[in-house]
């Protein structure tokens, strides 16, 4: 009897598909999604709705940045005209920073801007400078930028060079001067929070300094001064010694009026002028122009290859990597905000996979028992199990070819497809068993009328999900459609034949 089964064309088609799928899966593997592999899912909202071109630009820049960090499995999808959904396998502590940074480079000599990111012609990979033991990013600028650099350098008698990435304004309010000697705090150059002993101390957790956000003050500043800022308190030994305020706009953009208003705001609460420090933030590096470079510029040469140094420790290395990646990708056309971040650690992911597979097997066994109780013959249970397993295999094979991410909603889709598959097989079985008087052809045709209608309604239900593009539900919908279609055109006809030969 088995040989008769194997000769049947429809059953052969099924076997062929199963074997091909097994081959595909074993060679290409199955790409698992976040839930199984571990990684991050980030939802980003843009400052304002974007048109297609702008959105394409933003997606392209973000892709470059994430690839630049060495993250390979990156999926970036716009959603509507204001949101972007990013799924990244694996993780990197800098993902959020790198996505939120607008990436506007501003290089000044003294206080005058000499060139910006727009003047960059080439950015090289970040590296360690062996002589000075520091991390650096070499880059080349265009002729214009180089000329201005030389001219201003000469005019200001080689003032210091400061390089800013997304320059902003920072304000520090000092409430307790007695802590000053303890910190060795220098804000004299007007750069706050970067290259700054205070920030170093805070970041390294020494001296018992804590940063806490102050929502009330932030709201007040927004209401009374109409400024969007990050506002926090500086605590040492649980005593508030000051506040810090970081604003996205540069001091130039804010304008003298606004800055005056800020000072008045704090004066009104009893803070003296000398306890309000205002400076620039976003500084990556500031250094005097090296002797060699000075010579070149002095004799009139235009130098286009320059170096951006970030420092010598581990933080500097991460920063150099970030600078390189951001500069290479170009600056974002608008501001973005990270609205949601979801991280799944790989261990949790692995446990879930194992658990999902175990659960699936148990479910299958339970179904087998139920079917046996109903039909009392293994001649039906076995084909149903075989067909069910074949269906899962073929779906996974298709998912492997199109590199579709198998994540939990996709698994749900597989369950949906297999569930309706078993339903359909029961329909076929009952039609074949019940109407013994009619021809087998007739019985199976009847069964397929029901099955095709069910298929059409399932597909109709899934289509809106894909069209509306609802995040994870898209994967679920597509896998379900693939699954039920494979079922209707491959596995169910084969099952019909099996039943025909065995029981009909």
């Amino acid at each position, binding site marked *: 009897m088995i040989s008769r089964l194997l000769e049947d064309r429809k059953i052969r088609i099924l076997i062929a598909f199963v074997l091909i799928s097994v081959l595909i899966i074993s060679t290409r593997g199955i790409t698992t999604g976040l839930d199984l592999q571990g990684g991050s899912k980030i939802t980003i909202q843009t400052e304002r709705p974007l048109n297609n071109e702008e959105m394409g630009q933003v997606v392209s820049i973000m892709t470059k940045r994430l690839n630049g960090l060495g993250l390979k499995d990156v999926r970036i999808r716009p959603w509507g005209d204001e949101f972007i959904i990013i799924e990244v396998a694996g993780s990197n502590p800098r993902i959020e920073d790198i996505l939120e940074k607008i990436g506007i480079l501003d290089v000044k000599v003294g206080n005058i801007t000499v060139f910006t990111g727009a003047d960059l012609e080439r950015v090289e990979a970040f590296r360690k400078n062996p002589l000075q033991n520091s991390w650096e990013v070499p880059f080349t600028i265009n002729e214009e930028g180089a000329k201005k650099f030389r001219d201003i350098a000469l005019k200001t008698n080689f003032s210091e060079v400061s390089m800013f990435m997304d320059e902003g304004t920072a304000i520090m309010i000092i409430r307790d001067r007695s802590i000053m000697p303890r910190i060795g705090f220098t804000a004299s150059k007007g750069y706050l929070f970067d290259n700054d002993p205070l920030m170093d101390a805070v970041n390294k957790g020494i001296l018992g300094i804590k940063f806490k956000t102050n929502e009330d003050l932030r709201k007040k500043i927004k209401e009374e001064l109409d400024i969007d800022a990050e506002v926090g308190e500086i605590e040492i030994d649980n005593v508030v010694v000051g506040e810090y305020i970081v604003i996205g706009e540069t001091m130039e953009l804010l304008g003298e009026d606004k800055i005056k208003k800020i000072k008045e705001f704090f004066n009104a609460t009893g803070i003296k002028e000398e306890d309000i420090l205002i400076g620039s933030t976003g500084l990556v590096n500031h250094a005097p122009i090296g002797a060699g470079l000075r010579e070149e510029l002095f004799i009139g040469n235009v130098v286009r290859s320059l170096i951006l140094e970030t420092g010598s420790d581990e933080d500097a290395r991460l920063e150099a990597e970030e600078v390189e990646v951001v500069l290479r990708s170009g600056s974002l056309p608008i501001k973005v905000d990270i609205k949601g971040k979801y991280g799944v650690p790989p*261990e949790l992911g692995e446990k879930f996979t194992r658990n999902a597979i175990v659960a699936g097997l148990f479910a299958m066994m*339970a179904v087998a028992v*139920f079917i046996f109780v109903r039909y009392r013959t293994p001649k039906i249970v076995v084909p149903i199990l075989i067909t069910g397993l074949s269906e899962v295999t073929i779906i996974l094979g298709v998912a492997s070819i199109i590199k579709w991410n198998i994540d939990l909603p996709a698994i749900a889709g597989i369950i949906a497809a297999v569930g309706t598959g078993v339903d359909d097989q029961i329909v076929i079985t009952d039609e074949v068993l019940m109407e013994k008087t009619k021809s087998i052809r007739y019985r199976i045709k009847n069964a397929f009328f029901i099955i095709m*209608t069910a298929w059409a309604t399932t597909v109709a239900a899934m289509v809106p*999900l894909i069209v509306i593009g609802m*995040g994870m539900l898209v994967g679920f919908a597509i896998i379900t459609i693939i699954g039920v279609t494979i079922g209707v055109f491959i596995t169910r006809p084969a099952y019909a034949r099996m039943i025909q030969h065995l029981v009909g």
Partner: protein
Amino acid sequence: MLDIKKLMIIPILALVLSLFVVGTNMTQGTIPMSIDLKGGTLITILVSEEVPGLEDNLKEEFGYGIDVKLVKDVSGNVVAEDIEIDKPLTAGERRNVENFLFDEGIHGEVLIHTIWPTLSEMFMRQAIKAVIFAFSFMAVVVFLRFKTFVPSIAVVLSAFSDIVVTLAVMILLGIQLSLASFVALLLLLGYSVDTDILLTTRVLVRKKGDIDGRIKGAMVTGLTMSGTTLTALIVLFIVSTSRILDEIAIVLIIGLIVDIMNTWIQNVGILKLYLERD
């Protein structure tokens, strides 16, 4: 056979009550929802045993609405704890919580999932839109297939009742509605229509035997279908530790039980009334 037409009062009553429950809760905004719909922050900490008093300490320190749940694996071991906070946290607030957790001795990895209400409103709107479209498309397919009005309406009504009554049961049981639940509701649409199509085809299209006989035959097949699916789902629910799979399973289990009532009492009743009127 029992007078199905008299029994029909049960599903109809269930539908009316459910419409009331769902309607009032929707307008009052009291449908229990998970954070991916209502917004908030989910913090997952990887721990191997429960951190004592975490919920109370967090509430005391921050004053947010906080719910701490344990996450266990197959063998029942604690693998993580989920801290659900009812408001979305800004970057600064997140940092504060991370500092606090560190101080409390939690030095392992801390994962933070923030959903802002605007995002969630959008999810809600999209989700509702999707369900309405799915429903309409299906109704069109069914009508094209059977080409008769009343039986097609019966199928559509049964599917509609399934969803509304299931939603009502979920609200009454306090089961959270989430993105996964929406997935399940769409799955439910598919499954529920399967049984109704089976019934309608057997009764309308087959000529053999009397109506009651055909209905009984359909019921045997239909209950086997629902039975296998229910068995699989119950096992899935018990064995699986994945929150998403559990959410899907519970909605489908409730839905399929409701579907049994709606298909084999309500739909049958409508068909009998339709056929006996001729």
